[in-house]
């Protein structure tokens, strides 16, 4: 019975399973090759660098599930990054307020995207191309020059291990408590990603709205026939995308203690998010996949780049290898074409 349902799950999530397998292999080999592999320090450094793209990839997943695309995710992340770099200092209450404002601004931006797409009836890709420019403009208003003022304790605590976190804030006997020891070496960013995924994505996926997002991407006509709330789901998808992008921006500000309204960087994040979504097994046609897959996809992209640090490969080859991996991965989708018996099915 268990074997049967496992087989079933594998069939239904082939892309996702392949992505996980690839990630596990990449991570294992990486840690074996690394002179200080399997150590907390290595894990902390690498996970810090992966968080922002992970969140942005998760943000991109929602519009893609609808069958659309959000070209503004990188820009929204940049905007929230700049907002956070202005606000995350002062008293704990002020910092908390800053966190809330940062996340709300990203969410509001996502909401705006959703409203423009649904009520303005503009294709998501074009609407978000334009709102992305607006987001970058706002980011430049907030922070014309790179820099920022982020509370040092916060920055230290959130970019290190759980033990360091506890020590910084003097909880659990400054990180020495016996019950904390099994988790002490886990990097805080990993916890953050897991918490957001568990508290935001999983409930969303199990809500009627979330299911409607899948239904719209899979067969919008049938979703309508079944009486599902189509407009609400579309707006919710973009809004949640905005929130997740804001999580990315917030963390980037904490990690780098600064904000940077860099257009190139925003564009790179957007494009990498699309790649991560596809690598994670989500179909660009919509309807199947999920944010957890995108999380894995983003990690794959990042781990590949970590290899260049430890192997004696010319770092200049990095973009080339990334590109080849991406092209190879998506080309597996071509097998579908070979199975098609009625050529008209190719056009649907």
């Amino acid at each position, binding site marked *: 019975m268990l074997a049967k349902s496992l087989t079933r799950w594998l069939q239904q999530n082939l892309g996702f399973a392949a992505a996980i397998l690839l990630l596990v292999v990449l991570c294992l080999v990486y840690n074996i090759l690394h002179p200080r592999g399997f150590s907390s320090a290595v894990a902390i450094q690498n996970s810090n660098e992966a968080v922002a793209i992970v969140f942005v990839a998760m943000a991109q997943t929602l519009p893609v599930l609808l069958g659309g695309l959000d070209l503004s995710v990188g820009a929204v992340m940049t905007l929230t990054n700049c907002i956070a770099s202005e606000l995350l200092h002062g008293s704990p209450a002020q910092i908390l307020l800053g966190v809330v404002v940062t996340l709300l601004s990203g969410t509001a931006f996502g909401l705006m995207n959703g409203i423009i797409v649904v009520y303005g009836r503009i294709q998501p890709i074009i609407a978000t191309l334009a709102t992305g420019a607006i987001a970058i403009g706002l980011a430049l*208003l907030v922070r014309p020059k790179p820099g920022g003022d982020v509370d040092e304790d916060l920055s230290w605590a959130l970019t290190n291990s759980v033990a360091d976190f506890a020590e910084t804030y003097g909880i659990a006997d400054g990180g020495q408590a016996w019950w904390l020891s099994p988790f002490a070496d886990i990097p805080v960013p990993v916890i953050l990603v897991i918490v957001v995924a568990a508290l935001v994505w999983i409930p969303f996926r199990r809500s009627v709205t979330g299911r409607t997002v899948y239904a719209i991407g899979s067969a919008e006509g049938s979703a309508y026939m079944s009486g599902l709330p189509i407009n609400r789901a579309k707006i919710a998808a973009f809004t949640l995308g905005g929130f997740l992008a804001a999580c990315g921006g917030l963390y980037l500000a904490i990690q780098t203690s600064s904000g940077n309204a860099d257009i190139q960087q925003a564009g790179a994040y957007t494009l990498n998010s699309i790649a991560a979504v596809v690598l994670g097994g989500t179909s660009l046609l919509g309807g199947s996949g999920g944010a957890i897959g995108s999380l894995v996809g983003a990690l794959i992209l990042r781990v590949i780049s970590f290899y260049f640090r430890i192997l004696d490969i010319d770092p200049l*080859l990095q973009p080339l290898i990334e590109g080849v991996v991406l092209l190879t991965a998506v080309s597996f989708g071509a097998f579908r074409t070979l199975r098609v018996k009625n050529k008209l099915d190719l056009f649907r």
Partner: protein
Amino acid sequence: MRRLVSAENKPIAIALGFILVILLIGTGYTLSTTGTAPLLSPNYLLQQLQIGAFLGICAAGIMMVILLGHIDLSIPWTLTAAAMTATAIGGDMAVPTALAVGVAVGLVNGIGVAWLRIPSMIFTLGVDTVLRGLMVAQTGGFAPQDTATPLMVFLAKERLLGIPAAIFVWAAVSLAIVVILTRTGFGRAIYATGSREAAAYLSGIHTRWVILGAFVVSGVCAAIAGILLAGYSAKAYQGMGNVYLLPAIAAVVLGGTHILGGRGRYIGTLIGVILIVLLNSVLSIMQMPEAGRQIIYGAVIIAMLLVYGRNQRVLS
């Protein structure tokens, strides 16, 4: 009235209106601050169009792909790769080699999209990344030391009969695209395929070859833009094409080409490019900081599309 401004021409008419508004605002601004009207001087406009040629040629190419309902995200590094190859090769073969780079990229894109049927969004993105990788590996990540050939410099910078040569190149590319789109079977097949690929296929159109051809045109246009841009800057440099992709897409869409394919006229794309170029130059005359530029830029696109959308709904 309905005949005069058909549904297809409406976006073009609106875009023209926006151009007028931009010119009026810009001129009003300069008159009130310096008492001059540089925006209306032919020389200034020609200079702006010379810079606009790079964008215009990219937009012409990507329009072919957008008409099919696809997209070409590999423009930035196709442009850069062509420019770098041209400067590296040098001599008489510089320009032909750069064009060959464009053709090759277009062929790869076309095969991936038409035969493997991988969504163009992701396939061309992958090709773009690979090209970047190749160029970075090739040049060592630095700006190449090679310089543009005299021909490239001439095409980009010199004037012919008082008009920048780049504008002639742009005009030639435009003419070619217009002829392809309106006067050849290939052009009509692009519209048919973009409009409804199944119907085009059942009409006996070789839709795969049509897709391939459009990507090749897009690649070649990016290569031409790369040649000109390298000539203009006297050299090629990393990331030189990055700023052209999104404005090119925006110009095509603002010109009334439907992002899902099948509809759009080249004159619209031309006007879309001019609109974006003028918007940029007015904003720089106003010494608008980058922040304001981006916001206005995005707001204008949204506003125009909302206006277009309203018209479409009234018609349907």
